């Protein structure tokens, strides 16, 4: 279809950036409600433009052709006899998708007017060239954060706790060993006492021959034996010799160590 349109608008043709742009031009020119586009008219006009472009030997970008196909498709769907919608099936306006896209495009098209206005205004604001200020490298400034400080404290305390846990484990191990050795010392002492002899502590556990730990354990063992009433202990002068004397009634006790807990 040839029309005045073809001639009047040829100049503008190459200015259309894309199919949406062209559609918008048509919608505005015809004062069409975007929500109710008369698809027959618009498709016709759109195709007119395309053929005008062809006549002018303009390269028609593929996007324009895709839109033409879309418009024709919508048109054919609009022309189909309306049938009763099936239950559960919504009647979808074939134009809906196009309208949505057009509206989305419209937002930015309007926005570009705003941008152009602002640019025009602010291009009138002039800046001053910087003055020459020599660079001086100042002392190093520390970059620190309170939170990191807190984290460091927490982790130091955590590490410390783990270390202490470790130490107390070691202590426990030592104490366990001690227990075993205390048991054996008690046995040892009772072994001697069985013979009904008075024991001289320094003969049994002399710190010159035995380790300090052993002497101490030996002393504990001696106290243990006294506590259980199997022997009595005497020391005649301060720092003098310590004697252990077996008590008669327990002389032959078979199981004297029972008072020390088993593990």
């Amino acid at each position, binding site marked *: 279809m040839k029309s005045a349109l073809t001639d009047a608008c040829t100049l503008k043709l190459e200015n259309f950036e*894309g199919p949406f742009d062209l559609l918008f031009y048509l919608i505005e020119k015809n004062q069409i409600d975007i929500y109710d586009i008369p698809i027959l008219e618009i498709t016709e006009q759109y195709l007119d433009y395309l053929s005008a472009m062809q006549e002018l030997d303009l390269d028609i970008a593929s996007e324009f052709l895709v839109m033409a196909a879309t418009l024709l498709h919508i048109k054919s769907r609009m022309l189909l006899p309306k049938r009763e919608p099936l239950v559960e099936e919504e009647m979808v306006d074939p134009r809906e998708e196009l309208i949505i896209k057009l509206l989305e495009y419209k937002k*930015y098209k309007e926005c570009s007017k*705003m941008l152009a206005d602002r640019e025009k205004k*602010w291009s*009138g*604001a002039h800046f*001053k060239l*910087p003055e020459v*200020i020599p660079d001086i490298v100042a002392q190093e400034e520390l970059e620190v954060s309170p939170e990191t400080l807190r984290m460091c404290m927490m982790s130091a305390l955590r590490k410390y706790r783990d270390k202490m846990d470790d130490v107390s484990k070691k202590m426990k191990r030592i104490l366990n060993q001690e227990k075993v050795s205390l048991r054996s010392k008690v046995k040892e002492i009772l072994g001697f006492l069985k013979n009904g002899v008075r024991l001289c502590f320094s003969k049994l556990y002399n710190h010159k021959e035995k380790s300090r730990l052993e002497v101490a354990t030996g002393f504990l063992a001696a106290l243990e034996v006294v506590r259980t009433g199997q022997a009595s202990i005497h020391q005649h002068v301060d720092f003098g010799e310590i004697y252990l004397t077996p008590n008669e009634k327990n002389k032959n006790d078979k199981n004297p160590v029972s008072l020390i807990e088993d593990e």
Partner: protein
Amino acid sequence: MGSIKDTEIIIEALLFASGDPVPLEKIAEIIGHDKKTTKVIMANLQYKYQNTPRGILLREINNAYQLCTKPELDEYVQQLGTIRRKQGLTPQAYETLAIVAYNQPVTRAYIEQIRGVNSDGVLMKLVERNLVEEVGRDDTPGKPKLYATTEEFLRVFGFSSLKELPPLAMNEIPEVYENVPMD
């Protein structure tokens, strides 16, 4: 350095000498106040520049401050004959810029989906003019480049930050926005 007045004097000297935008932190450091206080001082100063008979105004761009002549005095400043004027943008460029500005970071595919037309050339022009820049790659198949607006964009269009972009007419078609795939 005592009063606010003295502080304002120092700030004016700083901004004048710098010419370029001076970051808030730098101003705070020099005037010896924390950033929060400095921000209040700057807002006050901005108001003063606006509301006294001055030929210059104080602009905020991305938390930095810069003095410039009032745009409405352009006709006089032009007469100095030393000012180069930059070329305006094409309609395509504004449109594309608007899509980037409101949706950043965006892929080229996203822009093209909205514009309905190939946007490679126009996008490259915007990058050339330093209004748009690549800011990384999307985490979708093909790892397409992502674009966002630059500080120059804020300067050219007189925004102090992206928050100042006027809202788009969203309420008209609320459901659409969700329907547009992110690339």
